[in-house]
């Protein structure tokens, strides 16, 4: 039982959380503070390379992630990662370098240092659901999200790659639903929980993103959701920032606020709007939250 020991983590925010996903960073810090979980940012972390690096240069991708894992060792606690893409890459790197001696030798040469690779890499969901535990999370609730129907959107990378020790079941995960139900919300059963939003094509081929993301928004609406919850800044960018544009292209209206998981849990533990960055969301969530008596 981990019941009453103090939790503390090294924190890898990743590039998006320092720019377009500032509200994810803010709400993560505020939520962890409210739940009395320690969070120390890894000093001078680098970009993990995300999809573009492993797309064309796996050795570079592995080296960048290994460097970040090494930097994280200097900070107390397991490594807490907010972004699904950073999480997937860091976890994959650790797994690959432990399993594949040739790649490990190459990366050690690129870093000019031996690798330890024994720290744990955890997504925020893992910390909330398992380290803190659903019971303690539920006990911290001040405003249960009663009556709020949430479509939990995992996207592609949160539970993948499949052969790496996982956050949850790769084809039928429930960890998001568990977390948000623990704070009183209702979840909807829907078809596109694990479908890809097109992620980084938002820069090079936005047309692709518009088509894929539209299918996701349409499915969430059809399932009767009031809002979508995500754990990835790329998913968020596509679903929230591009939502108006998509409504225009398909001559329809969704008006689905897209929350980061830390924002919704933050509302439930009684944090005020300014501490959760709700004003930074493009699809305004305030009318929905007010109508449910949550603000």
């Amino acid at each position, binding site marked *: 039982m981990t019941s009453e020991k103090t939790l503390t983590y090294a924190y890898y925010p990743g*590039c*998006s959380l*320092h*720019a*377009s*996903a*500032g509200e994810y960073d803010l709400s993560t810090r505020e939520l962890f503070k409210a739940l009395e979980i320690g969070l120390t940012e890894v000093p*001078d972390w*680098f*970009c993990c*390379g*995300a*999809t*573009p*690096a*492993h*797309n*064309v*240069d*796996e*050795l*570079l991708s592995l*080296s*960048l992630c290994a*460097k970040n894992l090494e930097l994280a060792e200097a900070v107390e606690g397991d490594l807490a990662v907010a972004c699904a893409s950073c999480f997937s890459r860091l976890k994959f790197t650790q797994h*690959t370098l432990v399993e*594949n001696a040739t*790649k490990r030798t*190459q990366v050690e*040469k*690129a*870093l*000019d240092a031996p690798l330890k690779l024994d720290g744990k890499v955890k997504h925020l969901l893992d910390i909330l659901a398992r380290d803190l535990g659903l019971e303690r999370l539920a006990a911290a609730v001040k405003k249960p999200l009663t009556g709020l129907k949430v479509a939990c959107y995992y996207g*592609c*990378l949160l539970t*993948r*790659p*499949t*052969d790496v020790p996982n956050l949850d079941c*790769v*084809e039928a995960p429930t960890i998001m639903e568990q977390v948000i139900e623990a704070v009183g919300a209702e979840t909807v059963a829907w078809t596109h929980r*694990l*479908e*890809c939003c*097109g*992620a*980084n*094509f938002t*820069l*090079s*081929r*936005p047309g*692709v993103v518009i088509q*894929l993301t539209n299918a996701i928004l349409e499915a969430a609406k059809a399932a009767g959701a009031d809002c979508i919850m995500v754990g990835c800044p790329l998913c968020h960018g596509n679903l929230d*920032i591009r939502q108006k*544009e998509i409504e225009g292209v398909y001559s329809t209206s969704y008006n689905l606020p897209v929350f980061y998981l830390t924002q919704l849990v933050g509302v439930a533990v009684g944090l005020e709007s300014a501490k959760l960055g709700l*004003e*930074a*969301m*493009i699809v305004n969530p305030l009318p929905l939250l007010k109508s449910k008596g949550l603000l």
Partner: protein
Amino acid sequence: MKKKKMVISQETMDVDFVRKVEMLSDTSVRRCFQCGKCSAGCPMATFMEHPPNRVVRLLQLGQWQRILAGRSIWYCASCETCSTRCPNKVHLASIMDALRKLSWDAEGASKESYVQLANKLFLQNIRSYGRQYEMRLAAVFNVKSGQFLKDLMLGPKLFAKGKLKMFHSKNKNMAEIEKIFSRIDDMRKNGEAL
């Protein structure tokens, strides 16, 4: 149409190329028996001229030039649905990585230039700044791809919401990152890594 007999052998497969792909991707090209499950689940298959299962088939038939010249590998979103569902544990997402690397090293073998440009700028940003600065990335991409007006309407909205930042905290470890890049360059020059 005249019917041609198809012959499959070690020669038609181009074993050398397949071995290179298998070494880079740490998975087997030869184990695929064409069930098509990868393409059935692929969100990007509709945008590709060769859906994922056919990419593997072309590799098995030694027709890898057709893959490298095409768009399919660059339209893969790396969502890993294919790898997750393969009954033979062929890690197709890693095969796509390997093929992109081989195409990338051949410089401009493919017709798909926007995705390659975005990747190139992304990696340049890491080497120069250690991190990704989204606004810079988007602005330079628009200029270099000649799409000056792309997503122009999003700019002011994002700026007002504090989502586009002009200034970022600078990474103090920049010498470290340059060393990693140049060590990898050296390893490749010396034939120690692919």
